[in-house]
């Protein structure tokens, strides 16, 4: 009898996994967005990637519409996204980077290699700001208005098409 119960173990394990997979299915990314959008940008206090001695906090998001981009050297998609971010910066959008779960050295190499569209990059090695933002992975971007309120959340890669059709219109909308 004992052995029979033992044989049920794989089934039990699988059932538990199924429950989680089911929950995973019902987590709707769109709902997650609505929870973040319209809220003030979470409070933080982080050093910058370039200067370990310089600490910034959430007042950084005040006064100007800002696109906050969460990236990491370890994230291949982020590399593909860089040309679009550079273009956004060229067109006058203020960008702030969050170097997420990275090392300073690798993060700097990354920017040296792919270009640096950011006014400043916050260094978030523990992922604490990423956690508050509810970041799943990288890249993710948040559009913050001049009052420091999150207005738009973009999960994943910003494609060249998104630049024209989504990001720039959103930026214009919140600038007025």
């Amino acid at each position, binding site marked *: 009898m004992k052995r029979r119960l033992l*044989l*049920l173990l794989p089934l039990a394990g699988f059932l538990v*996994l199924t429950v989680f*997979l*089911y929950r995973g299915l019902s987590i709707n*990314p769109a709902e997650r967005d609505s929870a973040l959008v319209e809220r003030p940008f979470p409070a933080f206090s982080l050093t910058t990637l370039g200067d370990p001695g310089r600490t910034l906090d959430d007042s950084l998001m005040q006064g100007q519409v800002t696109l906050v981009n969460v990236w990491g050297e370890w994230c291949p998609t982020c590399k593909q996204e860089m040309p679009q971010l550079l273009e956004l910066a060229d067109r006058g959008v203020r960008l702030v980077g969050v170097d997420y*779960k990275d090392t300073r050295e690798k993060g700097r190499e990354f920017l040296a290699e792919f270009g640096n569209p950011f006014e400043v990059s916050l260094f978030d090695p523990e992922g604490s700001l990423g956690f508050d933002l509810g970041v799943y*992975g990288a890249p993710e971007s948040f559009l913050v208005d001049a009052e420091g309120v999150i207005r738009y959340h973009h999960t994943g890669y910003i494609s060249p098409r998104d630049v024209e059709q989504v990001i720039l219109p959103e930026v214009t909308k919140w600038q007025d």
Partner: protein
Amino acid sequence: MLTPMIPEIGHFALIIALLMAALQATVPLAGAATRRPLWMAYARPMAAGQFLFLIVAYACLTASFLLDDFSVATVAENSNSLLPWYYKASAVWGNHEGSVLLWSLILGAWTFAVSRFSRELPRDMLARVLGVMGLVSTGFLTFVLITSNPFARLLPNPPADGVDLNPLLQDVGLIIHPPMLYMGYVGFSVVFAFAIAALLGGRLDAAWTRWARSWTNVAWAFLSVGIALGSWWAYYELGWGGWWFWDPVENASLLPWLAGTALIHSLAVTEKRGAFKSWTVLLAISTFSLSLMGTFLVRSGVLTSVHAFANDPSRGLFILVLLGITVGASLLLFALRAPRVSQRAGFTWLSRDALLLVNNILLVIMTVTVLLGTVYPLLLDALNLGKISVGPPYFNTLFVPLTVILCLFMGLGPLSNWKRTRARELARRVWLAGAAALVIGLLAPLVYGGEWNLKVTLGLVAALWVVLPLVRDLWDKSRHSEGRLAGLRRLSLAHWGMVLGHLGLAVTIVGVTVVSNYAVERNVRMAVGDSVEVAGYTFAMTDLGHRRGPNYVADAARLEVRRGDSERSFAMTPEKRVYLARGMPMTDVALRPGLFRDLYVAMGEDLGDGSWALRIQVKPFVRWLWLGALLMALGGVLAVIDRRYRRAATAPDPERHVREVNA
């Protein structure tokens, strides 16, 4: 004219295939349960019919792509009139609908193959095996027809042209990668069906493993090639020079491979020694379940939805229900019918049986490690503990040491005996190989890299420790009165299969070790006339211009490359393409492959003033990664050829210690 009706014909054929699959599933299984030969006899013709109609459906979809029928939604979203014909044909599986249809077609092919090549199987066994495969097929075809119909139309206003195939997928590697992978995934359905049939029939002796082994080896070989192709593709197509990212899609293919590797070894023990019976059944179920789960993870978008494609949630739910029923029912059946008594197989802790058991356990631990890393973010999220992403550090920290431990036992396994090995005898046979592995492993980084490196030593010792005892073993075994060659020829193909499989793993490990530690990467700014030296090679840019391809425009550079002061030089031409239909930029890497090093040049950004950012990499031994996988696959195939030969010859096999009297 029939042309406008092609999608409808395909749709209709798909419905017929589903009906046949349903018949193939129900009637033979009922027949086997009630011992009605006529009902059981339904299995084979239905398998053939189902396969035929799946071919028709698949051909219709391919025709729609080739004929640019943009009224078919799948075609409009994934093809374009400018696309070359071979990419049109492969675009069929470059999207969700087409790839699940391919999945079903391949399942149909495996089912048909089983129905042809298993004539010597007892009638009820064959009926059950084909019935189980029919059940899986019924589930999948229902899924295709209800949630992912590839023939759905965009009428009455079809678009004038298609969106184009994702440029990342416009590539030779991607033409063959998914079919290979699916051959592997779906191929494991055969051993799964055999295991379930054995559970249903209550005949859990070693007989089912004897029939299932060849099928499993073939599926495993396909999966090995499929994974290697995926890695190769990522390497040259994504433009970063990385070959494994531990992303969920890759892990989804690695999981069944790891479980499948454990399975082919466990099958061997069960067949030859009659041991590990329940364990083998459980592994057979798990391997196919992981294949299904891989399909679920990739197709439902549970893990990638945020970062890749927006998916229809009903699809995810459907596959989850399918997965739940298939795996849940199998595991329940396993719990109820697995052998009640654990028979004492009788082996000591130093024997081939025991070593294989240890390796099985290690492989299962590796599977669980990867599985946890893959679904962990999901688990945390479901428990509202926050959202995290698990990166390569987690996998490398756990996976690499586990692999080294695995190699430790792999070195001993092939030289040990079934039942019992004397420690002194084993030590006598491996000490020299062990010493040689240590010495070479310690010295090689000094010679190759100029300084000692612990990681390199570990990797090389592990790889050599797998290979050298095998060499020693071949040396001992080849002793023959008519000379060594005759001695080697006497060895069975199955033995050579094992040797190649293990050698392949060692080759892959050497590749991983060397390329991870000695790859050189330089990011440079270059204009025409500039030259730069990287790892002993001089790269000089001689030209920079524009080029027009069939469906893209490109900035192309030309570099003259020479090694050291060598007279001979060769050209490398990296490109930065923009695909017209989607406006998507793509890096087309210039590669100079070599057995001992690859040169890899990718174009980065146009820096203005006529210069470009270039990424130049020298990647030593990177080919060994995929070469190893090919050797492993070849090993799997050799073992199969051998088995068939032996079965035909019906000569008593001196290697088989325990023979099950059963047919």
